[in-house]
């Protein structure tokens, strides 16, 4: 905001003047002067607030990160570990969604954007227009989207076609008995409409209709407040089905093997199957920077792609690059 020297100088001037006029007013009580004093005092206070608000991060080399909610966990884990190793780096990590992260990159408020989807061409153009540099894409890992169910559910494997019938608008599978399970109505739980996981799962499972337009999810699909909420919903609800990153698996929840065609053997989400492409619902995790990264940001990204960062990727149950 007002971080230039002029302001600092004028603030100093006002401060000294204020103290002079305060001394005067002690000698000679004068209404006009007092009004002036009050006004200057208010101004000083205002300046002090605005100055202290731009004083943040002076002592730390701050890197701001925002983007995909899916990558929030791994992003936080990277930041936490990296901070321990490098005391002079201040990392702020947020997971407000891939779109928000890229938008913040365009606006220059962050240096690193996490994204669980590739950048759109329009976004690339905006980066170019705003900064004069190309957006650079870094793949830092892979993620399988697992289909979670209650552990007691006898259904262990579904084909993409059957998943389509369960999730997609116009699909006819509404009861577990239609896919060999108990006679229970299926309770679907997903993410909110703006989430990257939502749109990825939509394109992978619901796909496109014959007219080339995408098919939406069925009405009555819950939009859970977070990926963990989806998994917990599946833990506690016998008739539930939900999707979330495979990183969110717990011992108390079951997941389905998925086959590309009905009748083929199902494949469970795991590091090798995701990396090899055998598991059909998988995607890459991206990091975007404006131009080739330099300095602290470069060091941080190199570290993420290196063995320590990739160990964290694996520890957070994503699929590391080396696989």
């Amino acid at each position, binding site marked *: 905001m007002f971080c230039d020297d002029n302001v600092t100088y004028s603030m100093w001037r006002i401060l000294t003047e204020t103290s002079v006029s305060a001394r005067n007013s002690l000698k000679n*009580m004068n209404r006009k002067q*007092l009004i002036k004093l009050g006004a200057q005092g208010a101004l000083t206070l205002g300046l002090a607030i605005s100055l202290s608000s731009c004083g943040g991060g002076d002592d730390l080399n701050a890197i701001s990160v925002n983007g995909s909610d899916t990558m929030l966990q791994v992003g936080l884990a990277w930041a936490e570990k990296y901070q321990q190793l490098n005391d002079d780096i201040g990392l702020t990590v947020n997971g407000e969604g891939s779109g928000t992260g890229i938008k913040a990159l365009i606006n220059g408020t962050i240096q690193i954007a996490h994204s669980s989807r590739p950048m759109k061409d329009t976004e690339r153009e905006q980066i170019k227009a705003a900064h004069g540099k190309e957006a650079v894409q870094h793949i830092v890992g892979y993620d399988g989207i697992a289909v979670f169910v209650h552990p007691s559910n006898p259904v262990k494997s579904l084909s993409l076609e059957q998943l389509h019938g369960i999730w997609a608008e116009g699909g006819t599978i509404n009861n577990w008995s239609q896919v060999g399970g108990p006679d229970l*109505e299926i309770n679907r739980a997903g993410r909110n409409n703006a989430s990257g996981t939502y749109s990825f799962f*939509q394109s992978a499972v619901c796909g*496109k209709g014959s007219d080339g337009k995408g098919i939406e999810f069925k009405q009555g699909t819950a939009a859970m407040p977070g990926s963990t909420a989806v998994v917990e*919903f599946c833990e506690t609800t016998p008739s539930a089905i939900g999707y979330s990153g495979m990183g969110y698996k717990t011992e108390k929840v079951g997941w389905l093997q998925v086959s590309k065609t009905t009748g083929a053997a199902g494949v469970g989400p795991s590091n090798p199957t995701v990396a090899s492409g055998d598991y059909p619902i998988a995607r890459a995790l991206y990091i975007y920077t404006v131009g080739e990264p330099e300095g602290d940001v470069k060091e941080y990204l190199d570290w993420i792609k290196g063995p320590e960062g990739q160990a964290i990727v694996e520890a957070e149950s994503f699929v590391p690059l080396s696989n």
Partner: protein
Amino acid sequence: MSSGKKSIRALGAKLLDGAELPIRIAITICGWSSILFVGAIFFFIFKEAAPVFPHLDWGEFFFAHRWIPIPAEGNEPSYGAMGILYGTFAITVVSMFIAMPLGLGAAVYISEFAPPRRKEWLKILIEFLAAIPSIIWGFIGLVIMGPLIQKILGVEVGINLLNASIMVALMAVPLIVSISEDALRAVPDSYREAALALGASKWEIVYKVLFPAARNGLLAASMLGVGRAVGETMAVWMASGNTDNIPENFFNPLLVLERVKALTATIAGEMPDTVHGSEHYQVLFVIGIVLLTISVIINVVSDLIIKGIRKES
């Protein structure tokens, strides 16, 4: 030393007294600030929402049940918020069904039946109830009430309309109790004495004398309860199941076990994932306008009712 202190104090007093005019100006400006802030809230909410006004299909917004702001590839977004409006409406109605009898009962007990000491204790406890933040209610709904509903009612999903309504009811009750109690206390004692003299029992006084005499205040209490229920965010978000559903049969009482999605929860859930300035973002501000309008109408009307009571008594 003490005389020096004294003179400084006197000087300070003189300074403060001499500043009558600037202080008066400051006080007046602060006094008007509430109007300024209400105006600013309207201004900024409308400002952020305004770009979408010309091309938002209002008929679709209010009467279509299809909320897909970010569509699949090749599709047009649709902003049919009827399911979400229904969700807020349903939570409000069901929570008031729970909160009104509880709140009214507690208010009558506190104001008419309770011995003085117990009255004090109850009032303090209800004040604590009012102070519990909504995130705590959401958490309780999620981890305690949800499994409880599953177990007791034997249903599949524990986070549903009933769960959210119970949480909202518990949040609205303290408000209903305190306003109702005020309204009951505002009924002049001479009414009670007259009824007693005619041989009425305490209960007869309550429902034949106090209820009719305090009906405006009780109405205001329920309206403020409604306002609370409409505007509640975190508890509703975490405990309602957040699913855009409209039941086929409105007269089936089992609809309380369906999951619903509320206006407030839609904003809270989708806002962080939207890009500032996008159409979706603007439509979320339109939802904000709907909420703002409902709450301001409710509050102003109930305030007028309450003021009317004060004037009468």
